[in-house]
C-alpha cells in the first residue's frame, strides 16, 4: 500500500483528472447545447448539431456523475460541506441538467415545431446554466466559502445563494461558459460541413479570444485578493481532521505555489498555446487538431486554478482553520488505496470503449443524412 501522504496527493490529481475529463467530454456536449440557438438557423441545422453528440452525450455526462461519486468516496468532507452549503447552486445545476436527457431523447419524437423549439431552449438551459455555475463556484473558492465545522465535524453554511453571484465569481463563470462553448464550437467545426461549419469556426475563434482575455483578467484579479496560507499542520501523512491546523489569509497568497516552483507557469501558458492552436488550425482546416487545442485549454484552465488553490479545496472565510484541504478532508488510508486500484483498473477501460464508440460513429453529420433518417435520429 502506498503511504497516506502520497495517496492524498494522488487523489487530488485524480479529482483534477475527472474534472478535466468532464470539461473535455461533457464540456463539448454542453458547448453544442449552448450554441444550439446561436448557430442552428433552422430545424435541420439544429438536428445536425444535436446528432453530432447524440450517441455520446449520455456517456459523457457520466464524467460529471463520476466526479460527484469520486468526491464522495475520496473527499467525504468536501462532498458533505460543499453540496449542502451550495445547496441552491447545486440544485440549479441539477434542475438545468434535467432538461438534457429528456431534451435530446424527446425533442425529435414529435414533428410539432413548438414542441421542438421548447426542447431546444431546454437543451440550451441544461448546457449553459451548469457551464456558468461551475465557474461561479470555482470563483467563490478563491474568495473562501462562509462555512464552519463544529466539534462533531458537522458543517454549517452561513452565506446565501445570492452572495455567490459577485463580480469576481461571475468572471470565473464567464470563463467556464466560454471554455465549454469553445469546446463545443471546435467539436462542431470537426463534425459538420458547409454553412454550419463556417458559423461554428467563427464561434470558436470568438470564444478563443474572449476566453484568453477573461483568463488573463482573472489571473490579474487573483493576484490582488487575499489567498489562504497554512501556518501549521500536523504530519500530513497521518489521520487528520480539518480543525487541527492553523490558517491565515495573505494578499497574493494564491500565487505562492507558482512562485515556489516557477516551472508551474507552464500550466497557465498552455491555455494560450491551446488557443493559438485553435486559431491556426481552424484557418488551415485541421479541425481535429483545433479540438485538441481547445481540450488543452480545458486542461490548462482547470489545473491553473487547482494549483493556485493547492492544497486548499474548500477555503473557509468564516473559520479559516476549518478550510478543507487535500491533506485533511480525505477518506481513510484504506479507502483511498482501494479506490485508487478501482480507478487504475476501470479508467483505461472507460477511455478505451469511449474511444471505440467515437470511432464507430465518426464522420460528418450532414443535413442530407438527417432528412434520410428522420425517424431513427434525434
Amino acid at each position: 500500500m502506498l503511504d497516506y501522504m502520497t495517496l492524498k496527493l494522488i487523489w487530488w490529481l485524480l479529482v483534477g483528472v475527472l474534472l478535466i475529463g468532464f470539461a473535455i467530454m461533457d464540456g463539448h456536449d454542453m458547448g453544442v447545447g449552448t450554441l444550439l440557438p446561436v448557430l442552428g438557423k433552422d430545424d435541420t441545422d439544429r438536428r445536425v448539431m444535436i446528432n453530432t453528440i447524440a450517441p455520446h452525450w449520455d456517456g459523457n455526462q457520466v464524467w460529471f456523475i463520476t466526479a460527484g461519486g469520486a468526491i464522495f468516496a475520496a473527499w467525504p468532507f468536501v462532498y458533505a460541506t460543499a453540496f449542502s452549503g451550495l445547496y441552491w447552486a447545486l440544485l440549479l445545476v441539477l434542475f438545468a441538467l434535467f432538461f438534457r436527457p429528456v431534451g435530446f431523447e424527446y425533442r425529435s419524437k414529435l414533428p410539432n415545431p413548438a414542441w421542438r423549439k421548447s426542447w431546444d431552449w431546454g437543451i440550451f438551459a441544461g448546457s449553459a446554466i451548469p457551464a456558468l455555475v461551475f465557474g461561479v463556484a470555482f470563483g467563490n473558492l478563491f474568495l473562501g466559502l462562509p462555512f464552519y465545522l463544529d466539534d462533531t465535524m458537522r458543517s454549517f453554511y452561513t452565506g446565501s445563494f445570492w452572495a455567490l453571484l459577485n463580480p469576481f465569481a461571475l468572471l470565473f463563470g464567464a470563463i467556464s461558459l466560454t471554455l465549454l462553448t469553445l469546446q463545443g464550437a471546435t467539436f462542431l467545426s470537426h463534425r459538420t460541413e458547409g454553412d454550419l461549419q463556417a458559423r461554428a469556426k467563427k464561434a470558436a475563434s470568438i470564444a478563443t479570444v474572449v476566453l484568453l482575455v477573461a483568463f488573463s483578467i482573472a489571473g490579474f484579479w487573483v493576484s490582488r485578493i487575499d489567498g489562504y496560507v497554512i501556518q501549521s499542520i500536523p504530519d500530513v501523512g497521518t489521520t487528520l481532521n480539518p480543525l487541527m491546523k492553523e490558517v491565515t489569509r495573505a494578499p497574493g497568497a494564491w500565487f505562492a505555489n507558482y512562485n515556489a516552483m516557477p516551472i508551474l507557469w507552464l500550466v497557465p501558458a498552455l491555455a494560450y498555446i491551446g488557443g493559438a492552436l485553435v486559431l491556426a488550425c481552424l484557418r488551415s482546416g485541421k479541425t481535429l487538431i483545433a479540438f485538441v487545442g481547445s481540450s488543452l485549454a480545458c486542461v490548462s484552465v482547470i489545473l491553473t486554478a487547482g494549483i493556485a488553490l493547492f492544497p486548499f479545496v474548500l477555503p473557509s472565510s468564516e473559520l479559516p482553520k476549518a478550510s478543507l484541504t487535500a491533506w485533511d478532508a480525505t477518506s481513510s488510508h484504506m479507502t483511498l488505496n482501494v479506490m485508487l486500484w478501482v480507478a487504475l483498473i476501470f479508467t483505461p477501460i472507460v477511455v478505451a470503449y469511449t474511444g471505440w464508440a467515437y470511432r464507430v460513429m465518426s464522420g460528418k453529420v450532414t443535413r442530407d443524412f438527417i432528412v434520410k433518417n428522420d425517424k431513427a435520429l434525434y
Partner: protein
Amino acid sequence: MIDPTVVELSRLQFASTALYHFIFVPLTLGLVWILFIMESVYVITGKPIYKEMTQFWGKLFGINFALGVTTGITMEFQFGTNWAYYSHYVGDIFGAPLAIEALMAFFLESTMFGLFFFGWNRLSKGGHLAVTGLLALGTNLSAILILIANGWMQDPVGAVFNPITMRMELTDFAALIFNTGAQAKFVHTVAAGYVAGALFVLGISAWYLLKGRHLEFARRSFRIAASFGLIGIMGVIFMGDESGYHVAQTQKSKLAAVEAMWETEPAPASFNIIAGINEAEQKNDWSLQVPQLLGMIATRSTTEVLPGIREIRETNQERVKSGIEAIIALEVMRKNPADEAAKATFEKHRQDMGYGLLVQRYSPDVRQATPEMIAQAAHDTVPKVAPMFWSFRIMVGLGVMMLGLFAFAFYSGIRGTIQKNTLFLKACLWSIPLPWMAIMIGWFVAEYGRQPWTVFDMLPTYLSASSLSVASLLGSIAGFVGFYTLLLIVEMYLMFKYARLGPAVLKQDNA
C-alpha cells in the same frame, strides 16, 4: 441543534425523489434483457421481425431511459445536499460503491445506450448484439453496486469508528462488497425489474392482440415476455425469502414489526396471516395464525427464538444506556487523548454508540438524559407496526398474483391459445401497474423498516440530515416534485403515443 421539521422534510424529499427514480429503473433493468433476447433471436435466425421487435421495444426503452437518467443524476448528489452529516459520517465506506458504480457500470451502460440506437448501420450484427449485451450488463451492474451501498446501510459490516475524524471508516472492503444481505437484495430487486419489463411487454402485446393489430409481432413479443416474466417472478419470490432470512438474522426489529410479533414466543413462532394491530397497547386485538410457520421461514430452524417487539425494546434500553457511556468517554478522549480510563470505557461500549446517539434527539447533552428519554429512545428502535405489517402483505399478495398471471401466460403461449381468451388479455393489459406497486411498497418496507436509523445500529436518521432551513427544503421539494411530475406527464404522453402507434413508428414515411 437540528430542526426536526428539516429532518422530516429531508426524508420526504429523499423518499419522493428515490421513488420517482424507481418508476423508471425497473423497466430499464427488465426491458434491456428482453431487447437482448429478441436481438439474439434475430442474429441466430436472421428473421427481420425480431430486429423490428428489438427496435420498437427499444424506442419505448429509450423514452423510459431518459427519465431514469434525469432522476438518477439527483441521487448521486442528494446525499451531499440533504444528508451532509450522513455523508461525512459514513462517506468513507458508502461513497466507495457509489463511485465504483459510476466508473464501472454507469459509463458502460451510458456509452452503449448511444451505440444501441445509432449503431445499427455502423456495426455488424454480432457487434450490435454485443453492444446490447453490454448495455444490459451495465444496467444490472449498476443495480448491484447501489444494492451493495443500500445493503451496507441495512447491515453495516467492515467499518470502525475513528475518534479523530469523528466518523466510521472502512476496515474490510471485501465484507462491504460481498455482504450476503446485499446479494440477496440485489437479485430480489433486479428480478422485480425483470417482472416489470416483462409485464410491460406482455400488457402492450395483449392490447395489440385485442385490437387485432401487429399480430405476428405481438404474439412473439407476448411469448418472450411470458417466459422471461415467469423466471423473473420466481426469482423475486425465492430471493424475497432469502432476503427475509437475512433480515431475521440482522434486523430483528424490522422482522418483528413486519410480523406484528409483540411478544417473544417459544420457537418456532407462529405466523400472523392478518391481525388487528393495536399500537397503543402493543398487542394484536385479534389475529389469524398459522402455528410455527414464522419461526420455520425466518430462522430455518425449530429451535431459534425470535424476540418480540417488547423484548427488543427492553434490550435496547440497556444498549442506549451503554451508548451514553461510549459518548461520554469519547468526549473525554477527544479532550485528552492520553486518558486510558476513558479509552477503556469507550472500547467497552463502542458497539452501542449508535444507541447513545438516539437519545440525542431528546437531549443533545447525553448526560442530561432522563430515564423517560432513554425509554423513549429505546421505544423508537422499532418502527410503527401497522404500516410495516400491511404493506408487506400487500407486496406478497401482488407477487403471488403476478406468479399466477405469468404461469397462465406461459401456459397459453405453449398451447398457442393466447388470442382466444380476451378476458385474460385484458387482465394482462390492466396488470401493467402491478410490479411498480409491489416495488414501491417493497422499498417502503426496506427503508421505513430500518427507522429510526439511516445506518442500522450506527447512525440515527435524526442526526444524518444537513443543516438547512425549512424554507430551503420546502422550496426544493416543490422544485423536485413539480419538475418530475411535469417530466413524468410528458414521458407518459410519449409512451402512450408510441405504444399506440406500434411498430409502424419505425417506418420512415409515417408521422
